[in-house]
């Protein structure tokens, strides 16, 4: 037990005295956050999927649907229930939802009652202003076209726009949880791999092997020290995000911290595997880089995962970073509870356990 505390303490001292490493591991995420946060603002990639709920099932509603489908700018997805469609809208699986209420067809075939046009409800996600604007424009044109066709330039159908999400989220809200995830990945996976490989090369581990120290004590102390350090770094990034950009943690701190810890452990375990595989400390960094680089771009750190090409989706769905960034995001932005993030917790946990099992086989003192 004394060995465990002493090793933890020593590792923390080494971290704190290695000013340069300490500075850059913090400076990089903060720099990214400020740069991307200031310049990219609200932007988001644009891909429009529109959900249509046809409650009317009339000739006219079918006709409307066909027009939508014919439009190249949109992907149309037929939805059975309005509630389900709205849920998908909230999750950003759909960008717009058009509901064709009962009686739509009947009202169009009737001669227009005075000047009151028919109100067609279109739901959009306020968190995605840029996408929504484009989407509404497209649908508006279509609706216009239909109504012009129906009656000489008298608008028969008019969109009735309804915002759904009330949270006012911007790109920075998306970005910060991603940056925390990125920091956890690189500090732990790359950090552990590099450090352990270097210590092994320099014979530091070998000298410890000559004592009665157990490998498990050594590893436990490594984990503890890194939890403390990375926990503090994550707090600093969140703190700066809050001060500069007003980003908030909407969910519980318990959930957030749980996922930070899970992420640190899972990536450390992967780092131990790399340290075990790497023959020299020089090869540890490129191996870690080879794994972390694609994860940065595919794993939902900077860009939403759904913007990634379809054929990559199955791969992305098993990446630990994807689940870590998603879980952090859901917790911070939406306030999701730990229970509702069970899948993410399970997949990260799976990585953690699997990686530690492999690491225990590949770990070498020398």
């Amino acid at each position, binding site marked *: 037990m*004394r*060995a465990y505390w002493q*090793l933890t303490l*020593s590792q923390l001292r080494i971290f704190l*005295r290695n000013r340069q490493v300490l500075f850059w591991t913090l400076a990089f995420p903060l720099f990214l956050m400020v740069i991307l946060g200031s310049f990219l603002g609200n932007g988001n990639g644009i891909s429009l999927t529109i959900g249509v709920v046809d409650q009317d099932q009339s000739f006219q509603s079918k006709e409307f649907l066909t027009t939508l489908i014919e439009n190249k700018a949109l992907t149309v997805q037929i939805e059975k229930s309005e509630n389900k469609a709205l849920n998908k809208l909230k999750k950003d699986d759909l960008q717009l939802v058009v509901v064709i209420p009962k009686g739509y067809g009947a009202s169009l075939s009737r001669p227009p009652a005075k000047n009151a046009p028919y109100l067609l409800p279109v739901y959009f996600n306020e968190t995605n202003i840029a996408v929504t604007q484009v989407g509404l424009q497209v649908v508006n044109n279509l609706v216009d076209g239909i109504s012009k066709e129906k009656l000489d330039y008298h608008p028969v159908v008019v969109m009735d726009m309804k915002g759904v999400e009330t949270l006012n989220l911007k790109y920075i809200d998306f970005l910060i949880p991603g940056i925390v995830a990125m920091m956890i990945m690189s500090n732990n996976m790359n950090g552990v791999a590099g450090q352990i490989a270097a210590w092994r090369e320099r014979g530091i581990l070998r*000298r*410890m092997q000559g*004592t*009665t120290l157990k490998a498990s004590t050594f590893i436990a102390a490594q984990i503890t020290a890194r939890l403390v350090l990375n926990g503090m770094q994550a707090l600093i990034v969140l703190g700066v995000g809050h001060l500069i950009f007003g980003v908030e943690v909407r969910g519980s701190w318990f959930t957030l911290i749980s996922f930070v810890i899970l992420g640190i452990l899972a990536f450390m375990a992967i780092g131990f595997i790399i340290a075990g595989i790497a023959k020299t400390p020089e090869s540890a960094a490129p191996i870690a880089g080879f794994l972390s680089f694609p994860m940065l771009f595919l794993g939902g750190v900077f860009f939403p995962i759904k913007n990634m090409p379809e054929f990559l989706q199955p791969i992305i769905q098993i990446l630990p970073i994807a689940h870590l960034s998603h879980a952090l995001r859901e917790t911070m932005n939406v306030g999701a509870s730990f229970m509702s993030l069970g899948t993410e917790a399970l997949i990260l946990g799976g990585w953690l356990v699997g990686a530690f099992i492999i690491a225990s086989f590949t770990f070498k003192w020398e």
Partner: protein
Amino acid sequence: MDSQEEIIRVINLVKTYGDFTAVKGVEFQVHKGEVFGLLGPNGAGKTTTLEMLVGLRKPDQGTAIVGGFDITKELKKVKEVIGVQLQSTSLFELLTVEEILHLYASFYPKQVSIPSLIEEMLLAEKRKSRIKSLSGGQKQRLAIALALVHDPWIIFLDEPTTGLDPQARRTLWDIILQLKKQGKTIVLTTHYMDEAHVLCDRIAIMNQGELIALDTPSQLVKNLQSDSAVEFRFQNESSEVELHEIEGVTKVGNQKDVFVLYTDDLQLTLTSLIHMASDKQLKLTDLQTRTATLEDVFLHMTGRRLREG
């Protein structure tokens, strides 16, 4: 000698790397309280032997009993009673002397007082300095201090003085003799004959993975059966000169162009050498005579010098 208590028994240790056998069935015993030297040229297998004894390499054959425990079966017990300083170790450079001693002490169930250990190893001034900033001699003393934190009975030192200046070496010799006085058993390797002579009670000479001699330093020199050595060079490339035929010569050695004649009768050999040289019109240079040393024992037995170059 046999009356002494045995603390290490090495039984037929073998270590192979691929198809190269680095240690070929070495056997010896170390007595309690002695300083035991392993001597040999580069690549003789000293480090390999030592590291098998401390559990850092697995022997391919044979075993050793260290402090009453078998190194292949009770390694943890062995580690509790031994202290180790390796030939090439680096430590956490960013920790201070005091911190790393506390760290290593925490690995063991038993420990000595760190402040007095620092005092004994002459590191008091450097107590709060980072390891990075220590000199070579100070680092070496720290490495030995780390081997002593848990008050072991047996201390293994692999080339404790290599690379140090003469003054730092002497400081270390004092420390090692001090440890011996405290009743510790010390096993060390070295390339330096003078060091072996000053420190070691007994010396084992290794060459190419084999133990070729084991005795006290004075006995080893005595066994050479020649108490003097004559060293010289020929000014020009000498060809077929039968140095064996010079009177009184018991053994001839050479190292590059330096010849060494071992003899029991210095005067006879010298006059005979000079006669021969003038007969054959050879010019002798750098002629010197001295009493035979361990270095000569070594050259005699292996045909090689301890340190190359």
